[in-house]
């Protein structure tokens, strides 16, 4: 355990002592001890400076949060209805799961994802999707999420689009039950947003991975899913 002397010294450095305590503390210190205290304070102020650097709240994140709050403000009367619908959906999901041959999981998918379902060319098998991407010239690594993944990620399937003669791959996931599509193009200039199938998408994230243009859209932050690609 830290000694009382250590804790008193720390409280002095942290500005936690009263005036009387400061006077008493300082009167009992030698010059050498003061120098050591000053060195420690200098060390810590640089340390704090380093910790505070490079971690600003992204404007787009703040904007997204504001939008979500504003959306709640605009529709206060629908909140109760939404809760009732959510409760109803949960009941239907449970009942469907109990029925022979019922597929409770599919009821959790949003209508947008259901719309994609019929066009899926390669179903959600990690190895098959990796192979298909390679066969189509998309030489990207796609790693399965580890057991320590923060979000529940499931691979839903893969389909291809033709966009002005350029082939675009769309890898469909669900993250915590929310659909997310990741569009991959070998052409950095093509406008991938033309393909966006999720009109109500909350999150859109665009960034290159290696030589590929990548656009992720969906009802959930795609950060962890994008980290699966390299």
């Amino acid at each position: 355990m830290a000694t009382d002397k250590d804790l008193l010294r720390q409280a002095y450095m942290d500005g936690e002592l009263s005036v009387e305590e400061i006077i008493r503390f300082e009167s009992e210190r030698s010059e050498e001890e003061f120098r050591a205290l000053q060195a420690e304070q200098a060390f810590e102020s640089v340390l704090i400076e380093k910790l505070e650097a490079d971690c600003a709240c992204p404007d787009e994140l703040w904007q997204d949060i504001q939008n979500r709050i504003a959306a709640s403000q605009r529709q206060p009367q629908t909140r109760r209805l939404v809760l009732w619908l959510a409760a109803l959906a949960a009941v239907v999901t449970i009942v469907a799961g109990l029925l022979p041959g019922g597929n409770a999981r599919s009821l959790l998918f949003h209508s947008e994802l259901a719309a994609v379902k019929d066009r899926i060319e390669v179903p959600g098998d990690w190895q098959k999707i990796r192979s298909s991407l390679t066969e189509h010239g998309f030489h990207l690594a796609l790693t399965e999420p580890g057991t320590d993944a923060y979000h529940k990620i499931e691979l839903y399937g893969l389909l291809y689009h033709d966009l002005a003669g350029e082939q675009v791959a769309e890898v469909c996931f669900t993250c915590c039950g929310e659909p997310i599509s990741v569009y991959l193009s070998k052409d950095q200039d093509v406008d991938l947003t033309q393909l966006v199938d999720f009109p109500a998408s909350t999150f859109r994230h665009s960034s290159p991975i290696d030589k590929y243009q990548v656009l992720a859209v969906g009802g959930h932050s795609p950060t962890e899913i994008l980290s699966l690609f390299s």
Partner: protein
Amino acid sequence: MAKLTDDEFVALLDRYRAELFRYVARNVWNDSVIEDVFSSAVLAAYKQLDEFEAGTNFRAWMYRIVTNKCYVANREFKRMSIDIESVDESHFAVQPELERRMLDDPEWFLEACSDELHRAMRQLSTNERSCFLLLTIAKCSYKEIAGILEIPVGTVMTHLARGRKRMRRLLAEYAQAGGIIKNVKSGVKPACQRSA
């Protein structure tokens, strides 16, 4: 009990969002969840807005919610905080000579440690890190930290002392292993480190 309106909530949050985000960024173990943890904390606060009494300490209330979200995120990451009574502090002690060299030129030393600084921060226990970040980034007093973390002030002081020792120990080990301290001993700092 007076309540905040949604607009007042957003305005107050805008005032503190930079420091709250920094706190999350330095508190969670997994970089990929920083934005998620921050968003979920804000939206959780918004949902609980009825529980907040206007005119009381909004900042401390937000820090409590954000801290809980960080705890949950880190617990998900399968790392538990260390029991305060079960730690042998001799493991954290830095040799006096080594410490003197670290403190000799902190700007250069911490620049040389670079990313190791953030890794070291993440190796502190959850309580050590939260106490340290609330003190340094959030500029909270011991009493405020105790209120946010719902622990006694004496425990805050112990976590702070232990966290600081552990952090220095980790940085010292890195500096020794990476030859940073050795360069100081010979009196010659590499040019790239001197200019940093």
